[in-house]
């Protein structure tokens, strides 16, 4: 997997990294070669909105330095908790920082959060509810666990047992069931025999991102046991957050799985490239694609969704200025949507505006959490823009070769 794998480090373990930050400021703006306009040159939602350096990766690194060295105490600042939690952990700072200084500020921010939780200061009240809900119902929304599979469509029922499993995630199961159904139909139409975990729990991502590692470990342990006991060989995701969590975070929390992990777009693109599926033509439509941070910037899945969209006759894909590793976050991640709805909505609106500026009428993505936030922004703005998860496009046009 790469360097990022290894146990979660404690805050003090980042001493060298935090001293290493010399405010080069690439954590605040897009990587120079990729910037195409002033309007869309920012990369950090938090800094762009609040403008104090403390709300940038650089500021958070320097605050971490002061805490690590004991120059500052957690109780010295009224704003500290807000500063470390008003961040989507989208990684836009990290990808630039790695390229320039080989630092990953998001790891430091998450270590700050974990320490805040250890000290009983964090997380934010909204994040505590994640934990409480997960304990009771195994999902962050507090919905009945028995309803987790309620969405399954009659026309695309999973098998009782298969080598391939669809890991659903809380948001598709309870909030974006249309995406869950579309995913099931795409799998069915692709001829993939798949199952759904009979006792799937939250992947743990919302807890990990907000510093609640102990609770997350329980979820990881449970899911890993279930997957191993079923002898599953391949896990498919339609949630970018779950996919990243399994790929990067599970090994850090002892959740080693000898299982192939892939997002539904990777599977579909692969089948298409191998000639196993094809797509029906659609009426002319201009679309633009939003790279979910978890899947794009974190895992490097940039090409498969583009392969699919470019393969569909009738669809014209126009890129937003900030794309792939430089994509602007939807604003939903890192616990921001729950704890800082203003920042979250503002961030999503920025993205919708960027999509509108391409001339596209449909904004496509491949993450149910991005879907929720971008749809919220579109509705709030009252603009002529449609959001579609990529599976919702595919489900209508996929054909087996």
């Amino acid at each position: 997997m790469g360097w990022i794998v290894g146990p979660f480090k404690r805050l003090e373990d980042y001493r060298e990294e935090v001293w290493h930050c010399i405010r080069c400021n690439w954590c605040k703006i897009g990587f120079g070669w990729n910037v195409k306009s002033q309007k869309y040159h920012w990369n950090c939602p938090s800094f762009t909105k609040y403008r104090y350096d403390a709300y940038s990766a650089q500021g958070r690194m320097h605050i971490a330095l002061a805490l690590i060295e004991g120059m500052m105490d957690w109780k010295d600042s009224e704003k500290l908790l807000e500063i470390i939690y008003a961040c989507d952990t989208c990684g836009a700072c990290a990808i630039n920082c790695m390229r320039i200084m080989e630092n990953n500020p998001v790891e430091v921010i998450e270590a700050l959060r974990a320490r805040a939780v250890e000290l009983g200061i964090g997380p934010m009240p909204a994040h505590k509810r994640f934990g409480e809900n997960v304990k009771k119902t195994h999902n962050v929304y507090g919905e009945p666990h028995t309803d987790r599979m309620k969405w399954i469509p009659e026309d695309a029922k999973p098998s009782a047992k298969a080598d391939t499993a669809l890991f659903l995630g809380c948001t598709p199961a309870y909030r974006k069931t249309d995406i869950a159904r579309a995913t099931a139909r795409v799998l069915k139409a692709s001829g993939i025999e798949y199952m759904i975990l009979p006792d799937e729990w939250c992947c743990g991502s919302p807890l990990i991102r907000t510093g609640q590692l102990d609770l997350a470990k329980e979820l990881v342990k449970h899911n890993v046991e279930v997957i191993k006991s079923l002898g599953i060989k391949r896990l498919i995701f339609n949630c970018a957050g779950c996919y990243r969590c399994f790929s990067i975070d599970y090994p850090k929390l002892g959740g080693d799985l000898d299982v192939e992990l892939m997002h539904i777009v990777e599977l579909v693109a692969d089948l298409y490239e191998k000639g196993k599926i094809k797509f029906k033509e659609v009426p002319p439509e201009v679309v633009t694609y939003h790279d979910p941070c978890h899947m794009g910037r974190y895992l490097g899945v940039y090409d498969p969704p583009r392969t699919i969209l470019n393969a569909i006759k009738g669809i014209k894909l126009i890129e937003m200025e900030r794309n792939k590793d430089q994509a602007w976050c939807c604003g939903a991640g890192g616990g921001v949507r729950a704890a800082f709805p203003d920042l979250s909505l503002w961030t999503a609106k920025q993205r919708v505006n960027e999509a509108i500026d391409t001339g596209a009428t449909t904004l496509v993505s491949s993450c149910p959490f991005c879907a929720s936030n971008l749809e919220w922004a579109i509705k709030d703005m009252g603009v002529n823009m449609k959001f579609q998860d990529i599976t919702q496009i595919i489900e209508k046009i996929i054909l087996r070769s």
Partner: protein
Amino acid sequence: MSEKPKRVEHQKLPREVIRALQDVVGPEWVSEDRAVVEAYTLFTIDLGSFLRKHTRDPSLLPSCVVLPSSTEEVQAIVKIANRYNIPFAAFNNGQVMNSPVYSKTIFIHLARMDKILDIDEENMSMTIQPFVDYVTIQAEARKRGLWNGGSGWHSATAKPASQFTSAGLWQTDLKYQGLSRNVLGIKVVLPTGEIVNMGSHAVVGTGKYSFTERFPGPKLMGLIKNSFGTRGIITEITIKLHPWVGGAFLPEDTGRPSIAHYYEEAKQQKFDNPPPPKRYKLYWFEYPNLETLVEGLLKIARSGIGIGLNASGFYFAMMCARTSMEARKRIEQQLVPPYVGYVVIAGISCEDQIKYEEKVLKQILEETGGRLLSEEYKPDVLKAVTPWNLEFAVNTVTGMRTVRDWYLTTSITPYAPFYSAIDARDVWAEAMKKIGPTHDLFSPLGAICPYLYIVDRGHQIETEIDQFPKRNDFKQLLATLESFGFLKSTFIKKLYYGSWMEVPGEPFASSYPETGPNMYLIWRKYRKVFDPKGLMMARRAILSDEEFKKAQIEKPGGAVRTFRKWREILGLPKLKPTPDKTAWEYPAEPSE
């Protein structure tokens, strides 16, 4: 039981001051929160701030941070500071020497002043607010077939408004001569709160039509240039634009990295391979040694070809590497030869211009013993330096990327083009012998070939030698100070001006009265006129009578003692204070 580390507290300002500031900008844009001010204590090239951080100096923490959105708000903040006699400092990204010295300081962060105010295509100029960076200037100008001619050191860090008050090095100094020759006008809030328009802005209403730096205003801009934020806050700056023929957008890189797979992708060289913009071509060449390299560079520069001409293979190898391991490997394997340079040739008028200039280049190389790198000769080197295909235009990766271990001080010896490059190498070699390297592999490289910027068609070569201390290592930081003292004293002894970066800063300026001579006293006079209360960047760049007495005579700090030691060792004249201890007697007594 280990002792609990000492917490560092910041001094707060009286409530009425905070309220007055809040009335100007709104309560949300003033913060005295401990965590918020902590983010404003370490600055990019500021050895002092890192040393003081280690010693837990509380004065490193500003009392509060204020974020104005307009010239008028900046003015009002400055007037409040004057009314209550509170030191203040303004900054953008905090590139150079921004840390406060007095415990009670108002920090004016210009982060909300980020608008491009005007792009005048006909007169080829752009007027911007201070927080507009080079990246966005270039992006917007390119769409109009223009650019500003180059980007400051690390285009995210350097912004024209702040760079004008400190320095200005571009990869394209050969033709465009850096920022200092490319500013047409500025709007400045003086330390006393008056607003002054300078350059083309001098006559109200002409700001939009900034056609020349010569007229119509009095040439006051020189007082702000290199003033290190001591004589005013630039709230608007108009810069020249030049023709750009490379297209509206820069070419796409071949790939993009990801966080989880970064090192694998770096190993596969998946990213950082951008092609050059159309009608711009980089020609790389090598020479057998530094002497022939410099001779060749000067001939190329003076021939009139190219828009950018720079040299030093080592630095390119480091900056173009995707990881520090790759950089290290390149150096160890000597992948990029030490005496390598490049010239950027632009087909500004037509494609044939490139052909013609290429012919001239080849002839000069033949005459001076240089050799062009090509697909046949050292193609692996050409591949290794591909980031430079765009780097000359936007300056994305230079500087900090060098070795990922930061570079702290740069010593530049302008003038006497040929000998300054040779001398810089030799002086650095001497420093390595006397003090030792601050980085095992990279520091000694300057002793082979420093980084050479060819400026103004060869009138000048700016020579840069960098140090790479680990910032969390106090001993390495002290060693850096030592070598800095050695370099500075040696350059003064050799009658070089020394680094542009240190000259206006204290305690350098008053430790070396040879500069000017007595430039520190001239600045002190300026300060009395511009900033009679001595509030702006107090004690950072200019010392008052009292501050001099304390810093140089009565209670000299570590830096002053280091400089004095090296003055003595190297036999520079011994400094003798005036009877009132507010200055040095000059000329100083010759050393025995």
